[in-house]
């Protein structure tokens, strides 16, 4: 299947290896991956802070870019950016034509783990790893896209990797985009609870389907000198140690 990758700005600039891992995983699953270099950001920071005019710019651009591909699916290694694409139509109140274009694009856009399981039907991607991993549910993936079992299924099928569930895996990490810098103390307070649950799980790696949550979690783990590592699901699935 031909898929168009929207890599997200965060992955593109801060953790490009997650992007490369996503390509690797998709190719191993039998997909042909295309990447349109005109892509930038989905506009979520603007939308979530209330700047709909600015967010609309990003939405129209995204739609135009991904309309120009003949790929059957658009795959994003982020639940949060995927959810943003699904919200695009809200920015076109009173513009039925744009709304329809937004809906068409949204209908073929998938978060990576959900795409692997629910579209391709692949649960074992042939990955091998070691150690003990736990999974943090990114909020928008979980509650906007209903992604819960997908990353767990995939992780359970990684050879050599032990999966453990942490308590409150479905509770927010406190990131919340601009919330993390508008209310840094509250954000860090929520994060501390998450860190406690991660440490209590006994896992040496915390996995998520969103680079943004991982940035938040890694930021604190690194600050307190924890041994626990963060990994995007794509990185685990691409690994063949």
């Amino acid at each position, binding site marked *: 299947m031909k898929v168009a990758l929207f890599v997200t700005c965060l992955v593109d600039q801060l953790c490009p290896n997650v992007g490369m891992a996503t390509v690797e995983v998709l190719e191993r699953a039998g997909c042909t991956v295309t990447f349109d270099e005109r892509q930038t950001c989905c506009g979520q920071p*603007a939308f979530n802070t209330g700047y709909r005019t600015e967010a609309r710019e990003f939405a129209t651009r995204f739609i135009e870019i991904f309309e120009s591909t003949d790929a059957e699916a658009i795959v994003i290694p982020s639940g949060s950016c995927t959810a943003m694409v699904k919200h695009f139509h809200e920015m076109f109140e009173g513009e039925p034509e744009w709304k329809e274009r937004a809906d068409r694009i949204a209908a073929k856009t998938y978060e990576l783990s959900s795409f692997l399981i629910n579209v391709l039907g692949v649960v074992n991607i042939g990955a091998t790893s070691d150690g003990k991993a736990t999974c943090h549910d990114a909020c928008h993936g979980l509650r906007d896209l209903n992604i819960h079992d997908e990353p767990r299924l995939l992780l359970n099928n990684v050879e050599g990797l032990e999966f453990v569930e942490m308590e409150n895996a479905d509770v927010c990490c406190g990131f919340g985009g601009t919330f993390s810098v508008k209310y840094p103390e509250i954000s860090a307070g929520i994060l501390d*609870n998450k860190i406690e649950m991660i440490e209590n799980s006994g896992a040496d790696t915390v996995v998520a389907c969103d680079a943004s949550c991982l940035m938040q979690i890694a930021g604190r783990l690194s600050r307190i000198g924890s041994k626990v590592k963060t990994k995007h699901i794509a990185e685990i699935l691409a690994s063949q140690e």
Partner: protein
Amino acid sequence: MSTTHATAETFDRNAREALADPVLHGALRNLADSFVIRRRNAISSVDDWEGLRERARSIKDATLLHLDEYLERFTENAAKAGATIHWARDGKEACEIVLGLVGAKNAGMVVKAKTMAGEEIHLNEALEAAGIEPVETDLGEWIIQLAGETPSHIVVPAIHKTKQQIADLFVEKVGIEKTDNVDVLTQTARKILRKRFAEAQVGISGVNFGVAETGTILILENEGNIRLTTSLTKTHIAVMGIEKVIPKLADLDVFLKLLPRSGTGQRLTTYQSLITGVKNNADDIGPDELHIVMLDNGRSRMLAHPLTRQSLACIRCGACLNACPVYQQIGGHAYGSVYPGPIGAIITPQLFGLSKSKQLPYASSLCGACREVCPVKIDIPALLLHLRSEIAEGIPSGTETPTRKRGESFAFRMYSRMWSRSGTYALSMRAARLMQKFVARDGKIGKIGGMLAVLVPPLGAWTARRDAPIVAAKSFREMWREKKK
């Protein structure tokens, strides 16, 4: 005793103070642990919880769409059963009506059942100003009244207080011996309150549901104080938000399954008082007069827009507070409103004005836990986003136009201009890669203080307790290009 309360306008400061309070933190942790689990267990006893939520929401939606008709039916039927109906456009009018009624009875005191509508219109202050003593009879409300505070939770008003703090308060205010025995504390309250019930001529309550079909009001509780407030007194005044009306008695089947389970994790509250008018025979027990004060106070404004209308579906269960990671951190008082937590963050600005509470819509990570637990499926994150956009874009809402935040709106304009083109996007990231050399150590950015934190506030805010990642030496698009070569 502190009489000045935090307001929504000082949310940022309130939140910081709350975070620095270790006792509050302990109390909130208990709340999160116990109520969230109790709710989860309670909803598992319902076969089709999702279906029940759907039904509740569709009943509320249908009622709100024709609220005028249902209000007419409710008030007509309540009047037929002997209730007197009063209409209050706002809190001031509602207080005046209540004061008039209490004054006509020459009552120097009133017993009060827990009422959020009463809190909303600051009824206690109005009564006190008129020389009438309001006596809260719900244990939690009584405690915070003794302490001179306001409720910090819709359902559990004194949740922010520990057992120890309550014991100390009782020693100071009612003169008991120091104890940490909860039974002794509740028995003390009971003894004092029973006496006040016996004295009272007038009882004031809220309303959980008003049934249009019969004119019945339903009030839920666990302590029996509402039953006493509404049956021992000669005059019962019920303050009811106009959104509380539901069409039929049979609809209670849905709401009575949802509300106690969502709120306190109970299958049913201990008491459900269904009150239809006044007693039929003079010899019966019960008030001679029932007055229902129908309160608008900004509610009809919310009806106008289909998105904001759903705010009125709220049945005040408090589940969204318990589930909210932000509420769990800062508690209710920080919101500076009688309605705290996620639901408070959307209805406080709509009821009392966005300009007086413009921080509240941002006090959320948009995690959606509130929407997930809401028994009437209110899309709280969507409403938070709606309010944020009204602030960001300076869209008039209700009776006012919020002032835009200049610095922030400039930043987002720049972001949109630069990042909606791949050339300037890549350029900006190359610039960031160069600049980070001054602050990055070992592949990350540690705590940034001093001038730099002032010049780039988000960097200072992020790095106070978290390390920041650096822009990678090679972006994905560069790696992709190399791979394709």
